[in-house]
Structure formats: structure tokens, C-alpha cells
């Protein structure tokens, strides 16, 4: 019997492979448990308050990478403008926090007390109408998700109904990211300009700058991320997920299987935007500000690299990829700040050329067979390829991340 897995024949149909009624298969269960254990238990136990907050910030980017796995990895729709949705989510909650921080008492030295400081500096004398509803927390929370989804829907409907796709779509999303940055920077009086919305203090009176609050927010963030992972996994396991994969390879054929391709693309693009937006809002809450530097072309491309490094068809890989790249970024830019952008470029080229399936691919081809042998299981066939990205992460040892 040949020991090498034979992709041409594959194993006899195992009943498990045909069972789509459960959310996870065994391998995915392990991968999920590992991610959950590391972010819910290992990080909080091993990291000091400062580092934990830093990891919490990294994890807010993981939402974006997760959305990109669905949209780009499965659906083949590359968006180079996910920073826009991250930013919109972040700005929506920042507006609420800023209004709370700008009470008449806090701002009595301003020429117009009760409005955000940057408005006062820009000679604005009344709160603009679009800021008014952000006095309400429920409204702000809804807006966090709905505003980015609406923007994604408009872009998606305009592009996908006209069958704009591939590189053209990527370029258009990039243009949107550029325009959004220019708008935010240009409309200083309404947006806080290049500095963004800063000096955020309390959420309904709860001081989010304290260590205790930050720890709490870390867990809220981790919990929401796990929720998004479960949602992404649900989409992947549904027929919708298989249609995404089908669309990636043969979009035309999917139409002739009776599906309206544009609707499927719009939905997955909106879902990715919603994920990114939740990440953006959690960023604002944990880091205490939001600025256009998370909206533009460079951060948007960086977010694509997180997904690529993790393995673009791997839900769990997206989390590890994000953590790894951000850890590298923090260490590198502490010592050689100018080198980071080059490092990032090299990383991207390296991954695309050498490891197109990223960490998840490396895990599947190297670590998984060894593990299977150790556990005395039959080797999993290499038939999986990009479609079934069922994968376990190439573990980023928690200590490394903690360094």
C-alpha cells in the first residue's frame, strides 16, 4: 500500500465527510478549541495588562481577516478597501464616546461648550445634524453594523449587478478607501481630521481607560470574535459556502446552475463589512481613539496580508495570521520603524509565491500528517486543497506572542 496520500483516488467515502449537519468536523473542532483556549484563557493568564490590551487590538484586525476569508478566500472577491468598514464601525462608536466626553462641564472652556473639542477648534458652533443621533448608545451600536453594511451594499449592488469583478473590483474598493480617507481628513470640523476622534473617556459613565475596563473589553472582544468565527463557520458549512467556492472558479457556470450570482456576492461582501465594522468598534473601545490611518489603502492592504499569511481559505488561519503579522510588526517597528513597510511587502510576496495557502497550508502539509501518525490515525488525504480549508493553525506559541 503506498504511504503517500493519493489524491487521484481519495479514500472511500467516509460517512463523516458527507455529514454537513454539524458545525464542525473533528479537525475543525480541535482548531476551534485551540483558538478559543488561547484567546480566552492563555493570553489573559500569561500577559500583563499592557500586552493583553495590545493583543486585544490585534484581535480587532482578525475580524477583518475573517471577513476576507469568506469574501476573498472562498468567494474570490478581493476587496482592498476593508479599512473603510473597519473605520466606519470604529467612528460610529467613537462619535458616541466623544459626545459623552464632551459634556458641557468637561468643555466649559470652549467657545461653544458641549460640542467635541475639534469642532470648537474649527469654529463650528453647533453640533452637526449627523452627530445628533449619536447621543444614543443603542443608535450608535446599531450604526456600528448598519452604516458599513449599507455602504457595502451600495458598492456591492453597483458593482456586482453590473458584473464588475476581479481586479476591477479590487481597484474600485481601493479608490473607495482613498476617497474615504480624503473625506475624513478634509472635513476636519466634522470628523476630527487627520488626528481622528481622540480623548475618549467613558461608556455610559464607565471609564474605559482603566485597566479593569480594558480587561473586560478584552473579553467582550474575544467573545464577539468567537461569535463571528462561529457565524463564518456556519456560512462555510452551508450550501452558501460551497456556492462561494463554485463562484470563485466558475462564476458563469453558477448562473447556469440557476443562481443570481450578484446577490450572493453582495451578501458575502456585506457580511465581511459587518465583521470588519465590529472589529473597528472594538478597536475604538480598547485603544481609545479612531483615526483615518486605519481607513486608507495601506491599512486595507495590510489586512489582506493578514488573511493571506493565515491562509486565505482558513477561518482559523485568519486569526493566527493576524496575530503573527502584528506581533512581527510591533517587534520590527520598535527596532526598525522604517523597515516595516518593506518587511510587509516582502512578506506578502513571499507568502503568495511560496506558501499560497499560508500558515494553514503549511499546517496541513507538514504538521497534520505527523500529528495523525502520532495519534495513529489514517493520514488525511491531500485532496482537501483550497476548497475545504479545514485546518488547524500552525500554532503561534502563546509565549512568542507574549514577548
Amino acid at each position, binding site marked *: 500500500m503506498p504511504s503517500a496520500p493519493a489524491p487521484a483516488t481519495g479514500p472511500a467515502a467516509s460517512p463523516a465527510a458527507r455529514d454537513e449537519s454539524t458545525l464542525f468536523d473533528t479537525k475543525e473542532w480541535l482548531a476551534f478549541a485551540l483558538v478559543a483556549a488561547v484567546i480566552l484563557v492563555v493570553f489573559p493568564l500569561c500577559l500583563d495588562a499592557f500586552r493583553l490590551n495590545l493583543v486585544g487590538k490585534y484581535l480587532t484586525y482578525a475580524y477583518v481577516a475573517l471577513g476576507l476569508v469568506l469574501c476573498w478566500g472562498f468567494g474570490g472577491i478581493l476587496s482592498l478597501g476593508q479599512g473603510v468598514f473597519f473605520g466606519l464601525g470604529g467612528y460610529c462608536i467613537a462619535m458616541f464616546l466623544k459626545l459623552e466626553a464632551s459634556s458641557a462641564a468637561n468643555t466649559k472652556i470652549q467657545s461653544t461648550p458641549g460640542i467635541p473639542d475639534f469642532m470648537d477648534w474649527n469654529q463650528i458652533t453647533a453640533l452637526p445634524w449627523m452627530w445628533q443621533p449619536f447621543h444614543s448608545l443603542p443608535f450608535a451600536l446599531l450604526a456600528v453594523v448598519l452604516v458599513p453594511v449599507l455602504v457595502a451594499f451600495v458598492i456591492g449592488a453597483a458593482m456586482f449587478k453590473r458584473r464588475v469583478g476581479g481586479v476591477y473590483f479590487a481597484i474600485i474598493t481601493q479608490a473607495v478607501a482613498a476617497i474615504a480617507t480624503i473625506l475624513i481628513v478634509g472635513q476636519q470640523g466634522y470628523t476630527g481630521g487627520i488626528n481622528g476622534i481622540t480623548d475618549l473617556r467613558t461608556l455610559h459613565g464607565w471609564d474605559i481607560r482603566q485597566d479593569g475596563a480594558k480587561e473586560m473589553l478584552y473579553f467582550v472582544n474575544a467573545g464577539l470574535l468567537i461569535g463571528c468565527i462561529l457565524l463564518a463557520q456556519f456560512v462555510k458549512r452551508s*450550501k452558501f459556502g460551497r456556492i462561494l467556492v463554485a463562484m470563485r472558479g466558475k462564476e458563469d457556470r453558477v448562473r447556469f446552475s440557476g443562481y443570481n450570482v450578484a446577490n450572493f456576492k453582495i451578501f458575502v461582501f456585506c457580511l465581511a463589512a459587518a465583521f470588519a465594522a465590529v472589529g473597528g468598534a472594538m478597536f475604538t473601545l480598547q485603544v481609545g481613539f479612531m483615526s483615518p490611518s486605519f481607513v486608507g489603502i495601506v491599512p486595507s492592504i495590510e489586512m489582506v496580508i493578514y488573511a493571506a499569511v493565515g491562509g486565505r481559505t482558513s477561518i482559523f488561519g485568519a486569526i493566527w495570521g493576524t496575530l503573527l503579522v502584528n506581533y512581527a510588526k510591533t517587534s520590527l517597528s520598535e527596532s526598525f520603524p522604517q523597515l516595516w513597510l518593506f518587511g510587509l511587502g516582502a512578506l506578502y510576496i513571499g507568502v503568495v509565491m511560496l506558501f499560497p495557502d499560508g500558515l494553514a497550508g503549511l499546517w496541513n502539509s507538514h504538521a497534520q500528517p505527523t500529528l495523525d501518525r502520532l495519534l495513529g490515525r489514517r493520514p488525511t488525504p491531500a485532496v482537501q486543497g483550497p476548497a475545504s480549508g479545514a485546518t488547524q493553525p500552525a500554532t503561534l506559541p502563546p509565549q512568542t506572542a507574549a514577548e
Partner: protein
Amino acid sequence: MTGSNTDFLLAVEALTVSFDGFKAVDDLSFYVDEREIRVIIGPNGAGKTTVLDLICGKTRATSGSIKFRNRELTKLRENEIVQAGVGRKFQTPSIYDDLTVFENLEISYPRGRTVFGALTFRRDAAVRERVEEIAETIFLADQLERRAEFLSHGQKQWLEIGMLLIQDPDLLMLDEPVAGMSVSERVKTAELLHRIIRDRSVIVIEHDMKFVEDIARKVTVLHQGRILAEGPMSDVKANPKVVEVYLGH
């Protein structure tokens, strides 16, 4: 674009498409009955594939009308044409390489075709049974878990036919279904076609004359986007114009 209402399943009238002034299909009219098997033959570049492209909505007509059960198809989107009951097999096998044979067939199963429907689709007993039944028909019953890209060329052709069958279309359009097949595969495919054409209308494009004679009752010969001859195989074969442009060489 107004075609007349008829009793035909498919009525193509004055259909024209021009690519930058070149008329690939030129004022073409033909009719297909319920349960009819129509074979379209003609030299390379005659416009055969383009006719199918027009019917299934892949290419938009410049003018003319295509009525399916008296419903105008030229204004519908591809997926709506599929839902109306028209299935189409492409000249080169067009299947989902990254998915298994089972998943290829399941995607084609006519249920849960909206976004919400796809998210909530359950792989229940009805789906499994139907997929297995079709897989049996297309000789792929033991290949269900195999990724489609690893199938042989002939198996890919069968899979695509299976993807159409599971849609249960009233009009099935096959573009060169035996092209590139081995002799034994051809024999099996002919047998497969005989079985599946029983309860539906079929349009087949084919170059293999032995195969055509085997299945055809009525043949349409296309040449430069127009009909050169139409009728029973024996008449068409004897037609000197057809012999000159097509059968002669």
C-alpha cells in the same frame, strides 16, 4: 422583438447577433417541438455554439425573439432562464473543480437558490437520494467524494450532463457531448443520451456523424449563421449544398 405565440416548446424567430458588425447568427428561425430531439450540425464557426449562447442568455441577441413556452427569453437573466426550464451543457466541460462530485450535483439540485435558501439548505434524504440516483445514471456512483478536478475528461462531461439532469430541464441543450471521448466512453454516452432524451426536448450539437445518425430524427444544418438545410437525416445527407460545405470533407 416580438415573436409569434406558438404550440412549440421553443420558437426562435429572426434571431440575429452581430459581433462588431460580424453576424455570427443571421436572421435565424427554427422551432423545436415538445419531446423533440434536434441535432444541429455545421462547419466550424457556423454559429452553432452562439445559438445556444443566445438561448441560454450567455450572449444577448442583437434582434429577434426566442420564446420558450411562449415566454420571451431574450429579456431574462441566465438564472431565470435556467429556472424557466432550460439547461445547457458547454462545449468544454464546465464543472466546479474545487468541489466533489456530490457537491457539484447538489449545487445543481433545484432547491434553495436564493441567498437565504442557500444558507438554510439541508442535505436531507431527498437530496441524497436524487444525487445518488443521478450519479448512478452518469456512471459516477463510486466517485461521489472525489474532487471534480481529478476526474477524467469523459467523466467531467458526464458530470456536467448530470448537473443538468438534476435540474430536470424541459429543454436540454448539449454542445458536442462526445467530443474528446474515448470510443468506449462514446458508446456509454450514446446510451446515456438515449435514456435522458426520453421525456424532454433536446438540442444537440455534434460533429460525429455516426453519433448524429444514431440519435437524430431531425437535423438543422447551419452555415455562416444561417440555415442551410433542415429535415430528416437522410434528406440532409443527400442535399448537395450540405455535402459541399460540410459533409464533403
